[in-house]
């Protein structure tokens, strides 16, 4: 009978035991139709759930993409007028070159399924080849947006003195190779650090390192690549005076800094909650909404803490540092956003602000590395703190919800230290990997004399030497040079 065949096709197999099938055959037409309709309905509903997840991930990817605009504005506001176009172009090219590099190389190294060294690096899916057998487009888009964010972190730290072509090479190497490898370790089921392992025996401490949205993967990678770069390229001319003092070099527009901060905060609502990758079940929706709340509270607490610490330190209400402080809070919560209680998020943010201010001071005065936007302190050091937070405060019920109940929890919740140890191993390994690969790259560029603009160019400003003009023409009259 046709309707029986239809029922067999549409209904899940475990429902249709022999007994049930027999009795369906004997039932009246109305009952049969009801069953068929129910089963079709179920299939349609499952499809809707899938679409809910896809659209959620797409939306999150768009928000993370908008963080590029945030980075661009933040960095532009933090540099001097004469280098504005230079830093803006770096941000634009990060996105463009990042998309192509991630399409050709990056995704494959991060998530490709055909690798011989599964724990270390992926292979396959390059150029999205054979991609759809395993994955959805929205996953690629979301991951690309993260890769571009990691790359962009560096641009500010090397601002005002780096040759453009060197930056272009760096950007492709980071999004194409260095960053995807870290992603593979921590987020791919085969990686040796992952907290979502295909096989718990093959991940670190048979437990894995929890890095929900990428304190280590994204922020430490970007932040310590920035350290390698800023160290190799050296300080801006005039940053350290001859008697060893540090000269203040304020950015040219605090308005742009605030605009960038708000855009980044807005984009973070894609970055953190989106990392749950789905929203269609009650538990997913709960995790997603909790991520949004902890993100908010951590950013807020860090902003306030920075404001008061700076007031105490300098006697002024410091806008730009407060903005960076609230970003530090957002970085600090990125790893633990799904597993921390709201009060723990406030602690993570407030202490994160302290970590940020201390490492900002340490990098500038002790290491004497010149970082115009404090990217190293903000993303690298505070990112490491964010990983430690997880080892301390990850709550048992939330770990069970977002990961699994077999995994270790924060030591304040009775964890046995495996999680904290995994986080610390992760911090060390990511630091070493990034410093080694990016340090080598920047060193090579330096030896080839490609890394830094000449002192004359730097004094004049890169906008006029590399980019053919200035970012601003407030004068009424056009400069009047003829176009070639």
């Amino acid at each position, binding site marked *: 009978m046709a309707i029986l065949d239809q029922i067999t096709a549409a209904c899940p197999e475990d429902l249709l035991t022999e007994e049930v099938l027999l009795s369906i055959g004997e039932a009246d037409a109305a009952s049969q139709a009801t069953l068929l309709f129910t089963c079709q309905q179920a299939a349609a509903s499952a499809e809707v759930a899938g679409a809910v997840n896809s659209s959620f991930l797409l939306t999150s990817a768009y928000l993370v993409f908008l963080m590029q605009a945030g980075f661009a504005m933040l960095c532009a506001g933090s540099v001097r007028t004469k280098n504005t176009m230079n830093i*803006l172009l770096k941000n634009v090219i990060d996105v463009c070159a990042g998309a192509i590099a991630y399409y050709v190389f990056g995704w494959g190294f991060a998530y490709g399924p055909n690798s011989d060294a599964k724990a270390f690096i992926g292979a396959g899916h390059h150029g999205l080849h054979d991609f759809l057998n395993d994955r959805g487009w929205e996953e690629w888009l979301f991951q690309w947006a993260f890769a571009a964010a990691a790359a962009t972190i560096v641009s500010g730290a090397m601002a005002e003195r780096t040759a453009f072509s060197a930056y272009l090479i760096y950007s492709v190497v980071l999004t194409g190779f260095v960053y995807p490898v870290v992603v593979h370790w921590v987020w791919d089921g085969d990686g040796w650090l992952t907290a979502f392992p295909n096989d718990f025996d093959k991940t670190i401490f048979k437990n894995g390192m929890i890095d929900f949205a990428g304190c280590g993967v994204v922020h430490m990678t970007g932040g310590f690549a920035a350290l390698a770069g800023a160290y190799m390229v050296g300080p801006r001319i005039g940053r350290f005076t001859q008697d060893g003092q540090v000269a203040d070099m304020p950015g040219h527009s605090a308005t742009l800094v605030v605009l960038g901060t708000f855009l980044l905060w807005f984009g973070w609502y894609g970055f953190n909650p989106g990392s749950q990758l789905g929203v269609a079940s009650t538990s997913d929706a709960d995790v997603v909404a909790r991520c949004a709340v902890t993100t908010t509270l951590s950013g807020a607490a860090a902003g306030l803490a920075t404001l008061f610490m700076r007031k105490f330190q300098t006697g002024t209400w410091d806008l730009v540092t407060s903005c960076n402080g609230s970003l530090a809070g957002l970085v600090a919560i990125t790893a633990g956003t799904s597993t921390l209680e709201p009060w723990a998020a406030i602690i993570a943010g407030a202490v994160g602000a302290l970590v940020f201010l201390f490492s900002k001071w340490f990098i500038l005065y002790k290491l004497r590395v010149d970082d115009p936007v404090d990217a190293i302190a903000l993303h690298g050091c505070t990112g490491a703190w964010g990983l430690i937070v997880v080892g301390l405060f990850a709550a048992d019920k939330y770990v069970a919800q977002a990961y699994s109940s077999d995994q270790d929890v924060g030591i304040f919740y009775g964890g046995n230290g495996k999680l904290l140890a995994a986080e610390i191993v992760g911090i060390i390994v990511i630091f070493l990997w990034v410093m080694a690969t990016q340090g080598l790259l920047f060193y090579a560029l330096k030896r080839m004399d490609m890394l830094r603009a000449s002192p004359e160019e730097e004094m004049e400003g890169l906008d006029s030497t590399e*980019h053919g003009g200035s970012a601003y023409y407030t004068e009424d009259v056009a400069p009047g040079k003829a176009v070639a």
Partner: protein
Amino acid sequence: MPLNVMQLARSALVDGEDSSLHDRDLLDYEFDAANASSFWLLFGAYLVFFMQLGFALLEAGSVRAKNTKNILLKNVLDACLGALIWWSIGYPLALGSGKENNFIGAGDFFTYKRGADTGFYALWMFQWAFAATAATIVSGAVAERCRFIAYLTYTVVLTGFIYPVVVHWGWSDGGWLSAWDYDYVLDEEGEAAGTFLNPEMGGQGLIDFAGSGIVHMVGGGAALMGAIFLGPRLGRFDADGKPVDIQGHSTVLAVMGTFILWFGWYGFNPCSTLMWGAMQLAEKVAANTTLAAAAGGATSFLLARMSTGVLDLPPALNGILGGLVSITGPCAVVEPYAAVIIGVIGGFVYFGSHNLLLKLKIDDPLDASPVHFFCGAWGVIASGLFATKEGVVLGAFANDQYYGAFYGDDGTQLGIQFAGMAAIALWTCITSGVMFFLLKSVGILRVPPEDELAGLDESHHGGSAYDMGEAPAKA
């Protein structure tokens, strides 16, 4: 047969309204994909509306400081005026549910009596945001010299007539270019016995998924006509006819605008699936959009580097936009590698047409016509080359018998794409050309030279956009 059990099951499932369980959220079966589609469309509308901000910042950054308020005001009004026109006559002429007509729609004026239809308002919002986009494209090309009253006129005509007609052609279920134009075959008794697809176009319609032709060519074509009839800005070409660079006043604003436009494009393209159920398609569209934008930006940036030796920003920004415009039409029917190729060629098209306009001494301050008109035309044609058979099916184009010439189609689809491209170009250029000609002949198109030199902000808008010093404290 214990009927009450089956009745319970049925009523719980089918008509939750009458069920005794109505009040329980658990059995709220009202939820279905149609409601989610409304959400999807609204979300898309918000993103496309956000592109108004992108255009505003891009255009403000690309003009001189003395005309900033003027161009910003135009962008604000495109949203305001556009909404009221689209509500009153634009939507009715484009997609109104009136009498069947291949050329122009009619019905649903002032959204009258449609408010109760589920999903109507969501679609209206989405379409409004598109209409406002088409209108905004023009303001860049006529920047720094167009009279405000002329601006008001062309916005009304463009959003109220020129653009809706093209939408009707290409996207309504009755338009002569539409891939969803059905004619009903009647049997002897006058009953519908079958459907016949798009008789005007030999059974197939134009593949223009999100509007490379329908939106961008219309906006870009009107922009080109505006730039031609207005003539170049004072000082744009020197005595020998060589172009003189007129720099915009803030690259920061231009970059900010470009990023926001790219962001908004994720509403423009993926949400053009219009349906929640087509999320797999939306994902692919989003990935294609990204790749084409990146490829277009990189290409145009490198071309400019090779031709001028300068690592310049505006070519990169316009190249990104050119890539986005190019992929807007084909985004649903092509593979990612084709999206990269389309973006690369879009970068070339932008760069070439930019230089062509300079040769012709046409002054388009924002490069609105190279980006939107020429790259839009390329986007329409690209569909005829790169559309895969699977893509045409997945993109829900009603007739999947025709697809891209590079995949073995006999060229029919490519021919249709050329015909559609030519029709849109001719319609837009002729109607908007006549309009700008009339405005010019009655002398209200261009501001007097002294106003132009002083800047429109000073002469029309009561002062400069910026006041970086102390307040003048004028009473």
